[in-house]
Every structure is written in structure tokens, then in C-alpha cells.
């Protein structure tokens, strides 16, 4: 399925880009599976998603859990916990 991915904070620096369009294989149906697939790509993705660090996800700009089912055309964002205020 086609997804638009968005990254923030150190994740963006680690991967080397703020956003990208991807076409995922059929076995990627949830946020967790997407994360595993991105880690398996290696390089900056492998490093960023392989770290032992808390990462949160949002789909279409709303926070979701790891087992959230993805839909074709979704905007999926990955980021560390918020530090505003």
C-alpha cells in the first residue's frame, strides 16, 4: 500500500529526511509491521528504528497504538515523546 511517512526530531536527523512516500509490501498492515519493515531497510532507517528508544506514531495527525491498521494513502508520522511547553 502507498503511504506518506513523516519524521520528527532526532528521528528525522537520523533518517536524513523529514518525509517520504513509500509503497509497502503486502505483509505490512499495522503500525508495528511498518516500523519493522522500515528497520529492515537498514541505513539511516535501520539505525533510527533499531534504537532502544521510545517512539510514538500518528496516523493522519492523530496518535495511534502500535496495532493500528493502516489504510492506503495514510499519512504516518513517527516521533519521540513530546517536549513542548
Amino acid at each position, binding site marked *: 500500500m502507498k503511504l506518506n511517512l513523516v519524521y*520528527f526530531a532526532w528521528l528525522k536527523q537520523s533518517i536524513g529526511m523529514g518525509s517520504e512516500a513509500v509503497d509497502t509490501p503486502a505483509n505490512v498492515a499495522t503500525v508495528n509491521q511498518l516500523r519493522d519493515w522500515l528497520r529492515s531497510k537498514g541505513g539511516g532507517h535501520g539505525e533510527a528504528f533499531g534504537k532502544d528508544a521510545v517512539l510514538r506514531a500518528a496516523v493522519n495527525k492523530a496518535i495511534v497504538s502500535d496495532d493500528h491498521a493502516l489504510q492506503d494513502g495514510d499519512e504516518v508520522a513517527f516521533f519521540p*515523546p*513530546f517536549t513542548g*511547553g
Partner: protein
Amino acid sequence: MIRVQAEDFDVGAELAALGRGNKKIGAVTSFVGLVRDLSDGSDVAAMTLEHYPGMTEAALRDIEAEARQRWQLEDVLIVHRHGKLEPGDRIVLVAVASSHRGMAFDACHFLIDWLKTKAPFWKLEATSQGERWVEAKSDDDQAAARWAKK
């Protein structure tokens, strides 16, 4: 009302405009967050606030709606800045107008605690040891957890 902007804000003007003309208001409380020059033992020369345009506004609107549901508020304002800031600069303003001070204090405290853990902002500090992303603090989670519905 919520605003996300790069520009500074005038606290006096913002408070004067809050609920202007509404004679039911008996109390206005506010919180202003500033950039400190010391963070976890390092000197901070500058701070850059990144955010998630679109989601930030939606999250702040949800936070305001949650406060209005919990307390009888006459007006609410959240202004949060993004971009590059320096020590002493204002980061965020939360202001609440209500009929009585109890609600106004509680709602203001709630709003800033909730905002810290629920609005998509990330701080990048420039220190003498280089740049580093600020890590979320468990204190902030605990502060937000105090407001969880029992």
C-alpha cells in the same frame, strides 16, 4: 482559542483581550513558559522548537476542549511558539478566564501540564557541548497523570 506562531506575543495585550467585555469573568490566570539558559547542567545558547503543522493545532484544540468540558470557563487562550528561540524568550502562554479563581487556577495548571505531554513539539538545544534533543521527562508524565480522570 489557540495559536501556533514563530513571532513573540505581548502578554499584557493578550490578557487584556481575553474575554473582553464579558462581565461574568471574575478571574484571569496565566502561565508563561520561558527558555532557560541552563538545562541538565549545560549552558543553553539557543533552542529550536520543531512541531507537526496541522496535528499541533488539532492537539491544542482538543486540549482546550477538554479544559472547557471539565471547568466552566469564559475564555481560554493557548499561544505556542516554534522556530529558533534564545534564553529569556517566551515559548508558551496559557491563559484562562472564569467566574472564580479556583477554576481559573486549576484549568490553567491542567492546560500546561496536558500540553507538555499531548502537543507535538520537540525542543532542540544548542549547548556548548553541541546540539541535543531534549528528552521527555517522567516528571511531565506524572504532572499530566495527576489530571487523569479517576
